[in-house]
């Protein structure tokens, strides 16, 4: 009866051993306890003794070979015993060879396995949000094939190679670790063996030996940096003790309306004090209390005399409506970053910056980029402005004036703020010069301060457009599948259609919006 001698584990940590010396040869008779080999382990060189007696029928290892624990080394048998077929088989196989890998079959059809790239340093896994291809589609290198949600954002995953989609290995909504195959590309008429596909499904992040594509081909596609959405930030965190939160929940108190008495975090006592003060969820969502209103300034039926300025305004507005065929475009600007930046700047800087200053500066840059938005219709041509001057509609007493802020295309935000401050001061002092009111190409009119969400302003004759700016409102916005609270601001642009078409104006307005959403660019 043949007996197999396998490499024993000669120590707790031993996983493999190197055969330093073979002390037997085939045909030798060995006794139990005879030293067969000298084996070098991770700890020492040890003598390996025969676990049984018999004649050496076959030695399956050679000197200097390193083999794992448990590998067959020697077959012992009776003196004249012939090895049985299964033993012969193991002899010819020389131990266990790794099974044919999928690699080989993949190579024959030149398949490209596309794996989920690491789309950011901290990304460990991604969720397939959208699959933009289907089987048998042809994709070019750089085509967007998936939308992948990572720990940071939802990103477009580009194809690292071209080819025909042979098999999509993931489904929408599935979350998979980085480096797991997601797609197989191959030649148009290539057939992929099922065994190869099977070998890819459930493959862990370990590199597959199959991989033929050079490393750079599978390198992570770069998400477009310009178009990246602003990183979601959590809305202003309320610090409250766990107990305060619990009590607030029980009593229905809105913690955002509770002040921490210790200045650090809201504690239970603060919540209970707030209850006494009448803050509750029900009231938190109710409309703000009615303001105290003064006596009405006018009586019904009264004739109100026209002021000089109102007369001029009436004429100009009529003129505008008669001569300027307008169309209107509205966008929502995410002003969160702008608000944050303004707060920061105003905490440290000497010049207080108004939201209008951001908008004027953004328009200045916008008109510099799109000068066609400064034009006036002149029968046979359109005359563009000589310089960029932006009107700012303000009330001075009962009067509406729109003094001009120049150089918003050239000067930075701080300088723009200084300029506008000076202009406003002159307006209030009634000291506006002709250069302060002549030659504007656009006016900014803000009614946010009056609680207006959005409105459609009327273009000042002689100008091309006017921008109506609404108030900044905390709004729930879905970002990457999360509901985030963002500060949104409506802007409506009225445009003289004689001068600009919808697309031109839209591109201009969108650019201004993006500048406002990336306010660092305005500095």
């Amino acid at each position: 009866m043949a007996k197999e001698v396998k490499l024993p584990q000669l120590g707790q940590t031993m996983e493999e051993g190197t055969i330093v010396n073979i002390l037997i040869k085939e045909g030798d008779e060995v006794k139990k306890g005879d030293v067969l080999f000298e084996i070098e382990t991770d700890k020492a060189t040890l003598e390996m003794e025969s676990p049984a007696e018999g004649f050496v029928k076959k030695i399956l290892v050679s000197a200097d070979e390193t083999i794992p624990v448990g590998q067959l080394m020697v077959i012992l048998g009776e003196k004249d015993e012939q090895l049985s077929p299964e033993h012969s088989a193991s002899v010819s196989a020389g131990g266990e060879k790794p099974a044919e890998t999928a690699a080989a079959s993949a190579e024959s059809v030149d398949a490209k396995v596309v794996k989920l790239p690491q789309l950011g340093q901290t990304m460990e896994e991604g969720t397939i949000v959208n699959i933009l291809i289907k089987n048998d589609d042809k994709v070019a290198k750089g085509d967007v094939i998936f939308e992948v949600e990572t720990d940071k954002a939802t990103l477009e995953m580009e194809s690292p190679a071209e080819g025909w989609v042979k098999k999509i290995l993931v489904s929408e909504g599935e979350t998979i670790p980085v480096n797991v195959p997601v797609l197989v590309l191959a030649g148009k008429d290539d057939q992929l063996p099922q065994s190869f596909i099977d070998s890819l499904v459930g493959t862990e992040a370990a590199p597959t030996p199959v991989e033929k594509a050079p490393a750079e081909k599978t390198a992570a596609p770069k998400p477009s940096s310009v178009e990246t959405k602003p990183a979601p930030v959590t809305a202003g965190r309320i610090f409250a003790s766990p107990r305060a939160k619990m009590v607030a929940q029980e009593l229905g108190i809105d913690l955002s309306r509770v002040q921490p008495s210790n200045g650090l975090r809201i504690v239970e006592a603060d919540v209970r004090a707030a209850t006494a003060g009448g803050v509750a969820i029900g009231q938190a969502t109710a409309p703000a209390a009615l303001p105290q209103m003064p006596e009405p300034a006018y009586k019904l039926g009264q004739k109100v005399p026209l002021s000089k300025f109102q007369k001029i305004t009436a004429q100009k507005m009529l003129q505008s409506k008669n001569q300027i065929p307008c169309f209107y475009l509205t966008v929502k600007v995410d002003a969160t970053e702008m608000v944050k930046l303004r707060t920061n700047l105003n905490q440290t800087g000497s010049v207080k910056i108004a939201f209008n200053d951001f908008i004027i500066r953004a328009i200045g840059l916008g008109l510099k980029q799109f000068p066609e938005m400064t034009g006036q219709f002149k029968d046979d041509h359109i005359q563009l402005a000589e310089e960029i001057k932006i009107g700012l509609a303000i009330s001075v007493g009962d009067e509406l004036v729109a003094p001009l802020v120049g150089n918003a295309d050239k000067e930075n935000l701080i300088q723009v703020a200084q300029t506008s401050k000076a202009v406003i001061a002159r307006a209030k002092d009634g000291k506006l010069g002709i250069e302060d009111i002549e030659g504007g190409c656009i006016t900014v009119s803000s009614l946010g301060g009056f609680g207006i969400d959005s409105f459609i302003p009327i273009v000042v004759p002689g100008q091309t457009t006017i921008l109506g700016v609404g108030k900044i409102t905390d709004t729930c916005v879905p970002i990457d599948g999360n509901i985030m609270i963002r500060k949104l601001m409506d802007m409506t642009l009225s445009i003289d259609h004689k001068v600009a078409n919808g697309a031109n104006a839209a591109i201009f307005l969108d650019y201004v919006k993006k500048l406002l959403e990336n306010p660092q660019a305005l500095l």
Partner: protein
Amino acid sequence: MGFKIEDMRKKATPKIATLIKDGVIKKEDALDWLRTIHEIRFFEEKVFDLLGQNIIKGASHLYAGEEAVATGAMAAIEKGDVIGSTHRGHGHCGAVGNKYAQTEEERQTHWNRMMAELMGKETGYCKGRGGSMHIADVDKCHNIGSTGIVGGNQPTAVGAALAEKYKKTGKVVLSFFGDGSTNTGTFHESMNMASTIDVPLVAIVENNLYGMSVPFFASEVKGAGRASNVEDIAQRAAAYDVPAMIVDGQDVVAVFIAIREAAEYARKNNKMMMVEAKCYRWYGHSRSDPRAYRTKEEEAKWREKDPITVLSDKLLAEKLATEEDLRAIRDKAEKTIEDSTQFGIDSAWPDPAELANDVYVEESYPQSLIEAEKKSAVKALEATDAFEAALKTIEGKSKKEITEKSKAKIKDEYGVNVLMMKEVIAEAQAEEMRRDKNVIIEGEDVGLYGGAYGATKGLVDEFGTDRVIDTAISEAAIVGSAVGAAIRGLRPIAELMYVDFITIAMDQLMHNGAFNRYMFGGHAKVPMVVRSEGGVGRCIAAHHSKSLEPWLMNIPGLYVVMPSTPYDAKGLLKAAIRSDNPVVFIEHKATYGQMGAVPTDEYIIPLGVADIKRQGKDATIVTYSRQTMFALQAAKELAEKYGIDAEVIDLRTLKPLDIDTVARSVRKTGRLITVCESFVMCGSGAEINRRLFEYKYEDGRTGFDYLDAAPLNLGAADVPPPMSEPLELASIPSVEKIVAAVRSLV
């Protein structure tokens, strides 16, 4: 009999036939010795093989080559005699199991359970909790087990011998240990203790010449080191003035004769004897040992004296057996081991759901007792307050007179005594010693001196030196012998003068005291108390002032008790002595003179029940030991000066920790301040925090949810406690610090 060495190798070993003729043994005994030796050998060879196949995992200290020592020794002792084993203990366990096997079936079961234990199976002797290095049949074979720490089981064996002597069982203890262990501190502590307190112990040194790779005395291999300048370990018996023998450990007959003589000497005289058996292990220290430290020639020479060959040759020469008989014995042994291997493989794994079983002996107290105790605790506190008030109002010529008058007043009004901490500690021990004969005390200066802090004062007069045992300054042996005595049925109280000295006894306390029950699969219990004192307060610097309870809380299998008042100390100490689990009971050095009211009737305080020493609603102060007094003072100040109503919880027992009481309080107050004298890093306060955070209330919320402020932990500064008084005081929480901490949170 004092020190002398008898070298048995120089004397003629009697013939087996002579032993039979003299009625010392029967022929079957001699044949059975061979069978046992074969069984051990097959067992070890099988284990080596199974380790190689990874069927057995873990350690592999094999006994092959040394079988004659265990076989001869077990044959020489009586049933009921106790053995203590080593990390190379398969032979001891195997041979002693055979001794108690009445039938072939029992013998097979014995080897089955051994093999299953090595495989880590539920059917093993220790349910797979111990494995190779900790295998023992504690119940049936009077085997107090083996340890993985070299020399670790020697103090335990001394304690076992102490128990046999005290209980007058007439039994002796065989303490096996290797040559390597004779250079450890426990060897000296144990031999010295055994020889000075006179216990029936046979110390058997299995000198296999190498401690792992280092020769005990010499090796022919160049570059080999040396562990000793003395070749014969028996010579070390001179240090203890005890008799010793040297015997050929390869010859089972020689071992039998020597151990028989030694055991009889120990039994008759209640004294120890040392027997050095010269032997040799066939395998290396463990699997990964290439045996580079000894020559092939040396190995071959010893192989000629294989215990199997030596005994077989004798049996053949004396015509007590034929070759055929011998082969039959060998085959039978082989079959036993093969069957045991199959049994082990077929056995089930332990159930992970039972992972935490058998760490402790289950302890429970009737709810009525807990409720009654709470009432008496309140009464004791009131009476103590009244006593303190009386001290201030009652007039007298001297302090002593005022005290006596005040005591009388309290006795009158409340019917309780007012006693000092040290008095109640002594009283609690005395009461328990009267109640239970198995309670004994051992330690330094516990006898005539009455304990360094007077906590055993007068006990030796009442209970004698058999029960109040003064020992040498040998902390490991004091604690280790208490473990051994506890396993053998006593309820020892070991006093360590300072808890700082527990560092020297830590191996004994943890590995033997706390772990034995679990590692023996729940088959042992260790009902012992280590009494000690700790804390700062006497300007004696860092070696005498620490609070090491977090170390002890960190040990599964131990209980830790730290009382703050005389009332608590008495009731808790009595409960600790009655507990079937090892308890460390730490008094605070600044409290021994503290006076407090103590009921005249007998009472015990359940372990694991905290005491609310002051009710409050604004903040929860959790503390224990002396800091309880500071916390109570702080609470008073907080109420009087700042209108803050703090609750003070005295944990009393740190393990088990009464987190329920803490959590209930925090639910009320929302604020937690822990106060203790142990180092704040990884300290008891941090642990209380953790437990509270994770605590689940019946409303589904956690302790975290109920917090209204981040908890504060006051503990000892992360510095060695300094000697200088201002520094010493600065290193621990004080009344002012507690007041400030609470105010910062409320």
